[in-house]
């Protein structure tokens, strides 16, 4: 028969010391609130993602406007050359 596994100290149950029930409940509530916020804090990501693609979109519009201006200039040049 195999010998029982040796439990490491971290696996053992430890009673809470020097804390009353009210403080324990308060700490647990804070911890669970922080954990919930950490797992669902999408506000920062949405902002960050939005900023990146907005910057590319704004630059894209600037390029498109520049391209349109060039097309007008090319047409003007062609008109001058043909006259």
């Amino acid at each position, binding site marked *: 028969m195999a010998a029982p596994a040796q439990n490491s100290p971290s696996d053992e149950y430890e009673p809470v010391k020097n804390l009353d029930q009210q403080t324990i409940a308060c700490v647990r509530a804070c911890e669970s609130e922080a954990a919930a916020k950490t*797992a669902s804090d999408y506000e920062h990501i949405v902002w*960050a993602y939005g900023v990146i693609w907005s*910057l590319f979109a704004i630059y894209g519009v600037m*390029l498109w406007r520049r391209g349109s201006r*060039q097309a007008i200039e*090319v047409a003007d*040049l062609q008109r*001058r050359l043909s006259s």
Partner: protein
Amino acid sequence: MKKILPIAFLGAAALIFPVSVKTIFLDTPIENQMGTVQKIFYFHVPLAWIMMLLAVVCGVAAGIQLRRDSKRAEAVSIAAAELVLVTGLGVLITGPIWGHATWGKAWTWDARQVSTGLLWLIFAAYVLVRHYGAAGSERLAAALAIFGAIDVPVIYYAVKIWKTTHPSNDVAGSLPASMWAALWPALIALLLTSIAVLLIRVQQELTDVTLDEAWVDLDDAGANKLEPTPAPTSGSGDA
């Protein structure tokens, strides 16, 4: 080909982008310490890599422009510098958003933040000199671009040389496979978009050069037409 390549890159980026969003938001595990906000990493870091790559491209192109007086290199340098501003602004905004959530402070004046801010300012100066500088200022601008490219290794080694709040360079290397699976699509989508935009901007700059030359030729031709033809010389001696 000149028009097809950027469209092909943008099309590929548009296909990869939804995959990237799905992987980052739905498939990748939430990081243990930082929580969901760590997902900013998947586009903040690729954008920073692209910014540094473009700064080097701009510096090298500016060097070629100075040495060989190449119009194509000059166009690449201008396009890359403008994209350094776009990607740099993205890095400088997403970083503090992440820092605000994890460090409790958006800007900590750490060496990597400061050196990245410095890079952005150098390339802003480059773009301003190119835009408003007098004739001959393109050489000064090229020197600025080379100076900016030298800042790239400073940004990379900032976390090794100085004590900073930024994570070390080894973070990406030690990522688990599930996190690399989210980093790759984001990197490829952003890189393809940046290359496509770079190619479009280079083409526009070359068109500008061609148009300028065409206008000058047209003006010269018009001036030659208006100039009075010299009177034919007669051998009779009118004096």
